[in-house]
């Protein structure tokens, strides 16, 4: 497993590096002292596990996550941020309190190893922060993005937080074969489509598994017909 350590304190990084030496299958491929460096390292390295400090100068660990297109397997390292860690609704990650107990580190690594390595890449995950609450969401769980002014509402499970992103920016990041731009203000996950009803003007209304109904613009209805009939 390739590990990347992100922490602004050199001593903290070297301490974690030293603790990881006890695990033969873990190789520390890089270190970063701030979010900018971390973005660079993540772009150039194949990272299987990311150790991330939350409080850092020039952008917190959360700010870093918001800049990433997909979230690698993640372990937070934090001295005393339990409120920040508790902000997460879904335990999509592990976290270690500094100073780190070797047993806790071993357990976190076991958890990371247990993720089955298949030929298919793991589903992409995005970081969603809305006020005090945070989620790490697999894109396969997102049913719908809906624009609200300069914001977008993300529908997944029972949650629908607002994130500061335009639908155009989201559309550019998303896999076009799964996420369909239904109209100026909607992007739907085609895997969540339960039924398609026709409306006037040759346009469609899409009903999603979550219960939402999304009107499809006339121009996009044509494209939807082509996509679905394939």
């Amino acid at each position, binding site marked *: 497993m390739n590990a990347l350590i992100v922490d602004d304190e050199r001593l903290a990084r070297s*301490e974690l590096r030293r603790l990881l030496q006890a695990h033969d299958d873990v190789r520390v491929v890089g270190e970063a002292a701030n979010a900018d460096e971390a973005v660079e390292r993540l772009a150039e390295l194949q990272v299987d596990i990311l150790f991330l400090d939350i409080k850092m*100068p*020039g952008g917190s660990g959360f700010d870093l996550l918001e800049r990433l297109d997909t979230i690698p397997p993640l372990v937070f390292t934090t*001295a*005393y941020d339990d409120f920040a860690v508790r902000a997460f609704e879904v335990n999509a990650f592990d976290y270690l309190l500094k100073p780190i107990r070797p047993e806790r580190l071993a357990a976190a690594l076991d958890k990371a190893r247990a993720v089955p390595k298949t030929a298919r890449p793991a589903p992409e995950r995005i970081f969603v922060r809305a006020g005090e609450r945070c989620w790490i969401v697999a894109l396969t769980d997102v049913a719908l993005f809906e624009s609200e002014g300069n914001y977008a509402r993300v529908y997944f499970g029972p949650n629908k937080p607002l994130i500061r992103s335009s639908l155009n920016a989201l559309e550019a990041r998303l896999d076009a074969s799964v996420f369909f731009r239904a109209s100026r203000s909607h992007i739907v996950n085609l895997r969540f489509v339960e039924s398609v009803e026709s409306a006037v003007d040759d346009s469609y209304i899409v009903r999603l598994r979550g219960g939402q109904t999304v009107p499809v613009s006339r121009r996009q209805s044509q494209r939807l017909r082509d996509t679905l009939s394939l």
Partner: protein
Amino acid sequence: MASMPDSSRAFRVPKPSGLYWICQAAGWTAYLAYLLVVIVVFAGVNNRGDIVSMVVVFAVVPVPLTHALRAWMYTHGWAQLREWRRKVRQVAAAAMLAAGVTMAIALANALIHGRPWIPAANLGWMFLGWDIAFGFWLWIYEAVHARRRRGELELIARDAQLRSLRAQVNPHFLFNSLNSVRSLISEDPQRAASMITGLSDVLRYSLASDRQDTVPLAEEIHVIDEYIGVERVRFEARLQFEHAIEPAALAARVPPMLVQTLVENAVKHGIAELPQGGRVRLEARVREDHVEIVVTNSGRFKPPEDDSGYGLHNARERLRLLYRERASLAVRDDGDTTTATLSLPLEPAT
């Protein structure tokens, strides 16, 4: 009596004092005597039936009736201050009660003696007067007591507030430092050892800081030096610290951990937020009757979302409680540097 005033207490009917009974008896006896004089001497009434029935009515009716009225006033919150609407309604109710009593007595008299009885009107008005007088008395009594209770509460609150406002060691600092020590143990055991003594000094000072309202600045600066020593291990070359302290200022008394909080804020904003690090400078000088302590750091002051804004707020509250308006704390953002200026009177804190 330190508990908060609760509504159940105010709505209870207190046991009447001896003075209350004396006032009741004396007041109504005097009123009866006055009426007798007016009626017998000045109006020349000598109908014995009238006089006897008046004495009987005055012996039996007013005391139980006003006593019941008193209980009613208590249970209906007359002792509560700031209840204007309710009071207006109550006065109206009392006036109606007075009118009702007057009518009832007059009617009873008319039925028994075949004519209305004039002193009855007087008696009705007396009820109303009694009611208003007692209400006023209650009101004044409660106002005086509330003020005294408020005074006591303020003292207790000030003490508790001071205790809770004491800056404690920031847990983030503590655990990050412990993590650094753990790393140093294998990297540089000598430095690890001295870091532990430094950290111990800071912790001991912080834990003991609620024993005294103020300490000599020299003590505070010693702990700040230890604190900076610990932070230097964490931030390494990113943290530069210097101080310029006038010898005369060393004896000035300051609230413990207050200057330390300012320095810690400077490190948090000036250093921890800047990837390249920065500089923190501490100055202290005596100016006439006060000591001026200035903490400067590189980096902007942005009112933070986390607890350090709270730290500044706490520091101001402590100053207000200890010195009232004689101390001040100002934070100025000059773009690339932030300056916190603390001014404390040289005379002892109140």
